[in-house]
């Protein structure tokens, strides 16, 4: 996949690039408004990660011109502003998703994958990982062709794992992904074990081996 990361904070931009490149994606960067406008006009991307507050211009203007030219591209807005109106404005203008700083790269990656899967931008609604198949439209997962009876959270967890395969996911990241802001209500993330264990059981011995413990308290979804 080909991504454009339009972000004026070079450190953040490079971190995103590093994370996304691991899956063999091609990442281009734009560090200011003009560069971003130019690249968007000339090249085609699968997904653009767009900071609203770019030096010398607003990311929303780039989004507007993209939609004007009817480019087939997924757009995820990054903003330092957690305001509902900003969010609605961005989504109204045709952005596919909106993420507020600070965010986990795993979360960003999961959202990029979700945008890609919606089909419009060259993605597939079917996620496949060896014997695991996930139909994101009907929100069902199959193992060896058999449908698994997953709860909503277990399904989300599986998709999150597969989207971020090969990466270490701490319990904090998982909790944040599954429960959002409510996760700060939890004294500890112990009950994530419960969810993961349930998921492991349902994946059967065949699939369970992919969920590995990393560094004692984190998890990694990986092929052996």
């Amino acid at each position: 996949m080909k991504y454009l990361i339009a972000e004026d904070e070079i450190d953040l931009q490079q971190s995103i690039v590093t994370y996304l490149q691991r899956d063999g994606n091609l990442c281009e960067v734009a560090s200011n408004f003009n560069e971003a406008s130019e690249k968007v006009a000339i090249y085609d991307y699968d997904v653009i990660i767009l900071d609203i507050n770019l030096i010398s211009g607003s990311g929303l203007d780039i989004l507007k011109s993209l939609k004007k030219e009817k480019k087939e591209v997924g757009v995820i807005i990054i903003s330092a502003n957690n305001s509902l109106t900003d969010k609605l404005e961005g989504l109204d203008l045709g952005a596919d998703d909106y993420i507020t700083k600070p965010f986990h790269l795993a979360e960003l990656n999961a959202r990029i994958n979700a945008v890609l899967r919606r089909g419009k931008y060259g993605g597939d609604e079917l996620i496949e990982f060896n014997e695991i198949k996930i139909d994101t439209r009907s929100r069902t997962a199959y193992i060896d062709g058999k449908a698994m009876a997953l709860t909503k959270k277990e399904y989300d967890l599986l998709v999150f794992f597969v989207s971020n395969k090969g990466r270490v996911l701490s319990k904090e990241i998982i909790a944040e992904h599954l429960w959002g802001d409510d996760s700060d209500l939890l004294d500890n993330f112990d009950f994530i074990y419960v969810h993961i264990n349930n998921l492991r059981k349902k994946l059967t011995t065949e699939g369970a081996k992919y969920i590995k413990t990393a560094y004692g308290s984190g998890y990694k979804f990986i092929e052996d």
Partner: protein
Amino acid sequence: MGKKTKLIKKTSKAFLLTGFVLTVLSSIALYFYTKNLLRDQAEESLYSTEARVVNALKNDKVVFSLPPVTEIKTVKKIRPEILKDTIIYDPSQDEMEGFRELTTYEEINGQTYQITVRNLVVESGDILVAIVISYISIFVLAFLFLFFFNTTRNIKLWAPFFKNLEQMKRFSLSSNEELQLVDSDVLEFSELKDEILLLTSKVRNDYDSLKQFTEDVSHEMQTPLAIIQAKIDNIINEHTINDKQFEQVSSIQKDIQRLKHLNQRITILTKIDNNQFIRVEAVNITKLLEEKIENFKELEINYISLHSKNDLIVSMDIYLADILINNLISNAVKHNIEKQGITIKAENSTLIISNYGQKALQHPEKLFLRFYKEASSVQSTGLGLAIVKKICDLYAFRISYRFEDSLHIFEVDFSENKS
């Protein structure tokens, strides 16, 4: 300072008191002065009568005794003259009367006479009373007139002051309403008005810039936080670290989340302050509560029970309603240490959320203050309830806290806003 008295009342009181003291003192002075004067007059008249009697005796005229006014007797020896008050029976009036009496002894043509002349005192007493009474009534009348004149004048004079004072009482930083101060032709009042305007605009400017600063800081902090977060995510994935390092790095991520939540809450507070939530719609609080409780169940928080006989519907911004309920329930969950049941009651126009607690709060009055934490063991931003209070203030809902039967009880009264 002790008891506070109203300005007009105070000046009136002082005026009345001085008037009273003046009236009493001057009346007493007048009384004695007039009394002396009258006595002098009476004595003078006694002496002059006596002189006339002596003269008449000298000229061998027949002088009749005319008791009780004049009495002439012949006596053997001369004594010093006596001037005194006396009471004598007056047959003409058929009663005892007070007289001023002068008794002199004169030797005229070889005879010694005792001449006694008397003057009725009653007469001068009546005059005295009449004078003092009329004096007092004139004085009191003049004084009362002055008093009312003065008071109305004062009220008029101070009117700009009182009006401006009322305006200042209504001054609120959160409303952008300008102070409507009245000018006055009194220099000091006019100066006071200018100073108030200057001061309030300065206070407002400072407040605004402080607000802006808070907003900017919390906004600007998000990007560095995002960088730290992203770098940590890469450290975990790009480098080989040991378990202990991973644990520490994960804990940094937790702190970043905390800062993120803090920032979000500060932003919400600023936005409420800036009146950015103007959308008002009928929000079904009961339904919202049901959804929340469902969400909490996913977090293994399944000890919340809701009692609602009828739907609680409130006119407010739905986003703020969500925050209000979320923060109240979160607060109950966080402080529900024993994991006992949380009871929510939403009926008519009140919402009551109660959770078990071992003891009452030490400083319930500080409960809704920013960054006030009663227990340091509980992880919280210290802003949740401050936001709740702010939302309630915005819509004039009344929120109260009490501790009863080992329960922390929060009650929100939405009445007058019920749709």
